[in-house]
């Protein structure tokens, strides 16, 4: 049995006829790291929202098929039960912030107080989460007086502190600086590798996904149109470009060289792989 089982999922937003999810059937295993890529408007965010029950409970609309998370059918269980298992980091950090925390520290505490976590432990978890996202020292700052990237780090910290088993992250790196992307990605990677957490990462940063994910789903127009390892998916450059996914730069390079008859091997995903081949082809 898989940790998350989705079958024949269709969905349309309230007041709209058009289906945004059009027959999704997929299982996600416990402890896996799944990347979801696809063009804007493909339905990636909508799909994520079905996993933690915000669809249909909070957002409404018409949903058919089923989503079962760790044995709980999301249609039959309230968001509160699901949120103990699944933590979601939203695309827009400001959607994440409760608005009731006057300081960064209070904002992280908010969810924990609601869970009834004891005070001592709350303080510990806050400090750890803020260190993880690089916001220690920001405890007393107002969430509304942070830069965009700092708000995104805070949003991530609020979810880390809740310590759910499953993390869904919807383009969490969008406003982070390059080192921030690496730091947060490695925290998420560690949650997965070291603590066995299940991670679903919606992200068009293929370089990060190639480093961390063990499986890639491609979404297009409300469907999952491809399902494979990062290497299988990311080396098919023409397919990626046709679906609106940004290829890795070294893979694109190999593709351009191949068109010139100058590349004969499998496409690389990392600069080390590329370096090795280029040495062999051009500089031996």
């Amino acid at each position, binding site marked *: 049995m898989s940790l998350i089982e989705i079958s024949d999922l269709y969905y349309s937003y309230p007041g709209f006829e058009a289906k945004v999810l059009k027959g999704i059937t997929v299982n996600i295993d416990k402890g896996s790291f799944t990347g979801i890529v696809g063009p804007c408007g493909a339905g990636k965010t909508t799909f994520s929202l079905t996993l933690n029950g915000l669809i249909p409970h909070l957002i409404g609309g018409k949903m058919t098929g089923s989503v079962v998370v760790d044995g709980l059918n999301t249609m039959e269980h309230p968001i509160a039960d699901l949120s103990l298992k699944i933590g979601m980091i939203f695309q827009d950090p400001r959607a994440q912030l409760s608005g009731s925390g006057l300081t960064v520290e209070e904002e992280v505490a908010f969810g924990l107080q609601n869970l009834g976590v004891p005070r001592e432990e709350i303080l510990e978890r806050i400090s750890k989460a803020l260190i993880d996202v690089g916001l220690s020292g920001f405890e007393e700052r107002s969430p509304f007086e942070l830069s965009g990237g700092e708000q995104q780090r805070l949003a991530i910290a609020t979810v880390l502190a809740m310590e759910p088993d499953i993390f869904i992250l919807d383009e969490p790196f969008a*406003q982070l600086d390059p080192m921030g992307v690496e730091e947060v990605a490695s925290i998420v990677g560690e949650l997965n590798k070291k603590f066995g957490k299940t991670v679903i990462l919606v992200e068009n940063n293929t370089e990060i996904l190639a480093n961390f994910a063990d499986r890639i789903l491609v979404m297009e127009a409300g469907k999952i149109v491809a399902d494979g390892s990062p290497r299988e998916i990311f080396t098919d450059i023409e397919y990626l470009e046709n679906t609106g996914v940004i290829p*890795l730069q070294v893979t694109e390079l190999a593709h351009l060289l191949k068109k010139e008859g100058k590349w004969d091997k499998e496409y690389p995903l990392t600069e080390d792989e590329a370096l090795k081949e280029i040495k062999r082809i051009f500089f031996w």
Partner: protein
Amino acid sequence: MDQIKNEKEEPIIKIRDLHFSYPSGYEALKGINLNIFKGEVLAIIGRNGAGKTTLVKHFNGLLKATSGEVLVNGLNAKEHAVSRLAKIVGYVFQNPADQIFSSNLWDEVAFGPKNLRFSKEEIDSNVENSLKMVGLLNKKDTHPYDLIFSERKLLCIASVLAMDPQVIIIDEPETGQDYWGIKKLIEIIKEYESIQRSIVLISHNLALVAECAERVIVMNDGKIVGDTFTPDILSNIEMLSKARLKPPQIIRLTLGLSKWNVPKELITVRKLAKYLSGL
């Protein structure tokens, strides 16, 4: 660094020893000196919180210097209303929600030029051209909130283009964009550059910066710590890492090939591919 452009040329934006503190007392800018010239594409890069957004909000008067001077086409930005400066400098916000308020795309984009009292003909042609440039003309009657996030960001760019400013500032436009969105951005920037406007691009996507910008300034902790030609900045790992940045994959590869005399100016995939093909 001003030697990049003709020294005799007057900069459109001239900043001298700018300091700025937020009302909370936080000093976000600590002595900025910068010239921006006509027709150049300048990128501003730096870690989250470095002061990029705070800096550019001084160009159109959204923020007023605590000390020092910001001259926009010779006008002291401190002494002029945002509406006066908007004819010269347009700012596309980092977050589209801060900017959208009409009920269809056409009105949204027409809002700026109307406010600036452009003629009816000018408004119509500017709105049409701007929507066309960002690829949203076919959705002109749509409600902005029915656009997906990436399109909303392009809409915000169109709204500013329609005022036809001499300088356009685009704050992290890559956020939430897919392959096509990034391609579109590159096209928009190149097209605007070709009509001799200046573009200030704030971005964490250093591949986009490598593609579009001639000159890059690096900010860290409220200061400018680097200001020179793009290849020199993007291949300077030491400077970048001090500012908590990292070169994009292709530049890391190019640098790895330097012992075979591969020139470090090859900062885009196409440039490196062309060079290697020619070997």
